């Protein structure tokens, strides 16, 4: 299976996302922002970074990139798309997910091992978790505060569209502790924390067992393989 990883100018975690795809057993395919062609990939990851320098608003310019025209159409058609951090911001700017992401309420960039609760497992990217599972993956951002209108929040809560919530610590002032969302079909998921940084023992978050041994992020990438087998 082929999973595309998009590189925009200023993307940082593209090689990490490709590594995660490989470790999950799929083939990563590098996609360039200025090409419409998705090269027959079965799913797409929009990785983290500071696409186009975060100018204007985080993700706003990337959402207008040529590659996004194809991705947006394909996402409406059911193509699995995962947006991580800046990728989540891009999905929101592209109206594939609702709401907005603003400066962390404490005004600082923060990098920490973050606990999350898995709120929904009926998606392309979360089906290998159990409902209510607590996982730890790194969080690193300056503009991760999730905001939405009251009615949007009601809809998200009512229709089970919240994929992840922050556990123990809300690191950025996100409304309703929202860390990640899904769309109604479940093929599109976006979140601020970085599952691709918790896929390889020795390079992930600390666990009770050993230093940097956390691999809770791997399930995101095995989930999409499982989803495609079923589909």
């Amino acid at each position, binding site marked *: 299976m082929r999973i595309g990883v998009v590189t925009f100018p200023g993307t940082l975690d593209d090689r990490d996302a490709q590594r995660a795809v490989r470790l999950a057993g799929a083939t990563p395919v590098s996609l360039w922002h200025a090409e419409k062609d998705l090269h027959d990939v079965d799913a797409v990851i929009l990785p983290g970074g500071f696409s186009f320098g975060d100018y204007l608003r985080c993700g706003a310019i990337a959402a207008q990139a040529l590659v996004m025209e194809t991705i947006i159409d394909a996402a409406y058609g059911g193509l699995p798309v995962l947006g991580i951090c800046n990728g989540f911001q891009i999905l929101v700017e592209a109206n594939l997910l609702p709401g907005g992401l603003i400066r962390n309420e404490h005004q600082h960039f923060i990098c920490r091992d973050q606990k999350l609760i898995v709120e929904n497992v009926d998606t392309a990217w979360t089906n290998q978790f159990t409902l209510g599972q607590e996982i730890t993956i*790194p969080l690193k951002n300056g503009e991760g505060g999730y905001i939405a209108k009251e009615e949007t929040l009601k809809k998200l809560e009512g229709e089970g569209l919240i994929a992840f919530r922050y556990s123990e610590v809300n690191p950025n002032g996100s409304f309703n502790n929202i860390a990640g969302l899904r769309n109604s079909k479940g093929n599109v998921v976006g979140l601020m924390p*970085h599952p691709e940084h918790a896929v390889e023992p*020795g390079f992930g978050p600390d666990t009770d067992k050993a*230093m940097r041994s956390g691999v809770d992020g791997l399930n995101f990438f095995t989930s999409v393989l499982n989803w495609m087998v079923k589909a």
Partner: protein
Amino acid sequence: MTKNISVDTTKEAKKTPDKAQPWKELGLKQEEYDRIKVILGRRPTSAELAMYSVMWSEHCSYKSSKIYLRQFGEKVTPEMRKNLMVGMGENAGVVDIGEGWAVTFKVESHNHPSYIEPFQGAATGVGGIVRDILTMGARPIAVMDQLRFGAVDHPDTARVVNGVVSGISFYGNCLGLPNIGGETVFDKVYQGNPLVNALSVGALRHEDLKLAKATNPGDLVILFGARTGADGIGGVSVLASETFDSEGPSRRPAVQVGDPFAEKVLIECSLELYAAQVVAGIQDLGGAGLSCATSELASNGNAGMKVQLKNVLLRDESLTPEEILMSESQERMMAIVPKKDLKAFTDIVNKHEVEFSVMGEVIKEPRLYIMWGDEEIVNVPPRTVAHDGPVYERPVAYPSWIDSLKANSASTLPRETSEEALKSQINQVVSSPNQASKSWITDQYDHYVGGNTALAMPDDSGMVRVSEETGLGVAIATDANGKYCQLDPYTGTQLALAESYRNVAASGASPMAVTNCLNFGSPENPEVMWQFKEATAGLADGCLELGIPVTGGNVSFYNQTGDVAIYPTPVVGVLGVIDDVARRIPSGWQDEGNNIYLLGITRDELDGSAWAETIHDHLGGKPPVVDLKQEKALAELMHGANLQGLIASAHDLSEGGLVQAIIESSLRFGVGARIWLNEILERDNVDLTAALFSESQARMLISVGREDDVKFVGLCEARGIPVLRIGVTDSTKELIIQDVAGWTIEELAREHEGTIPELFG
């Protein structure tokens, strides 16, 4: 906006030999100006004057330090040179780490800009050092920073701390480089002159090494990256080479402004150009901008260059030729490209939407010609600009104050013996700004990006994987102790070397190479020059004894406010190699039931210590004794024991002494322990205060699984390393030091981690 630019040409210079020129304002001395006239056989044009003034500034020419830096190249054995692919003098040193891989690393200062404009000063400091690494043909893989600020209770400190930390966070995070460690020190001597040093490390395959050379006549000289603007003009000569007067800063326009997005694009674009093999030589534009890049490329290649300055793409069309030559606009590179590769070059830079302009050609004649339209404004031998600048043997004087400072030892300060008082002193030391956890700062830096970080703050050294196939990696630690160096710069500098070396060894890597950033006061002060002389000799002698070469470095003079210099602060960075990062050693206890060992001997060494500073506000006496032979033995023991998998954790002992190491080891993963000190007191004949707080060298705190005990102790004894079991880890979530103090882990965490956020959060 249009400005009438009157251009001073070489023709004009010949016609008007006696025209008054602002050489003094540009930082040149009379004899330097006279020498330029001798070199050229006429007065310089204003453009030439601008070039010479920046390139002959202290920052670029190392004119006061050169005679001392030579010993880093002289005090070396053939064995030390064995793995050195590129030594001092290039943008950064390059070391062969095996398997066809090489790494390049360097630390550089951005002190003065960071006081004037902390955010941009620190940000562009990161940007500059990363470009140095990129210039060697390497992919930058990590950054670190070494920061020194004024007193925590001074009203200006928060401005500088917040600005610098956000600047590093902003720039480094946007580049996608993990920040894997560094240092933060507060002391009133840095109040008007903070130190902001940034280190970067990069990795490359041997065959990808690039040098800043223009060799082949006919090759094109291409400037690419950001446009040239008015930022940072005269930054080098005016800022880095002059002392702040006590009135405070007023030179904001001379600080460069950084755009990390442009730099990230430039990194990816340059790496793609290297991979396509269309670049014959490359140089980044940093201090002294185009003046430096053109003259250095030509001089290094023993060639010349003819370039058209009007081809430089500008952000501000009103810039004069002199300003264009001096501009330190960030995120620019100069490439030497064979004509046949221009098409391939163009395709790649266009793909990345990076602007470029062909400025001219390499020529055979070793002469640098710069044209402004039809007018010749520069006609110089490039070597005289880039490499044959003035060299000074400045007067040196033994400081008048140092003997009385040395006589004032901390050994006579009152000591406590009651449990209550000792616990209070321990709490005060580990919660003092210099000894407290710096996680409030380091949590603002991304240490995950790249997916290769094996160790980062708060571990003893930062470690990154270089090869994903084999796990080959490098560890880096940096250290400087200004207080030790104030007491004795020779010993103090060796102590910095010893600590970095020990940190690297504690992480499981083998120390291999050294870089440095020498931060000192004014070289025109003979007492400062004495400190510099002692420090460089200490470092060169120390490296020779340890058998690891200095691969490069940076000198920052004029760090003072008015007449008052900072403590001499030579930052020493040591790079080590580890054949598989999976074997790295954690810095804290992870498992219960492990035995805790102290390696090394504890002496009563409290002069210049964290204890003397925190409890008694005292600085005096002699720094701890250096024993590099013992440090080497310790490193070899660590290597051997780690290969056998005997070590569960290792933490080096340094500022704050044994108790600091114990508390950090406990807090790293929240594991408790019971510790006893009585055997240290007996064997080493010291009291409790010394056992807890002494900063004796060549010591480490090791934890070992019970099953490996006999083997580990045997190994220590066989190698002559003093070893003492002083405790055992447990599941109590409490740290108990028998007959001294006890804490819950929670209580300890509050003490150690609360200070910095309370001050600056």
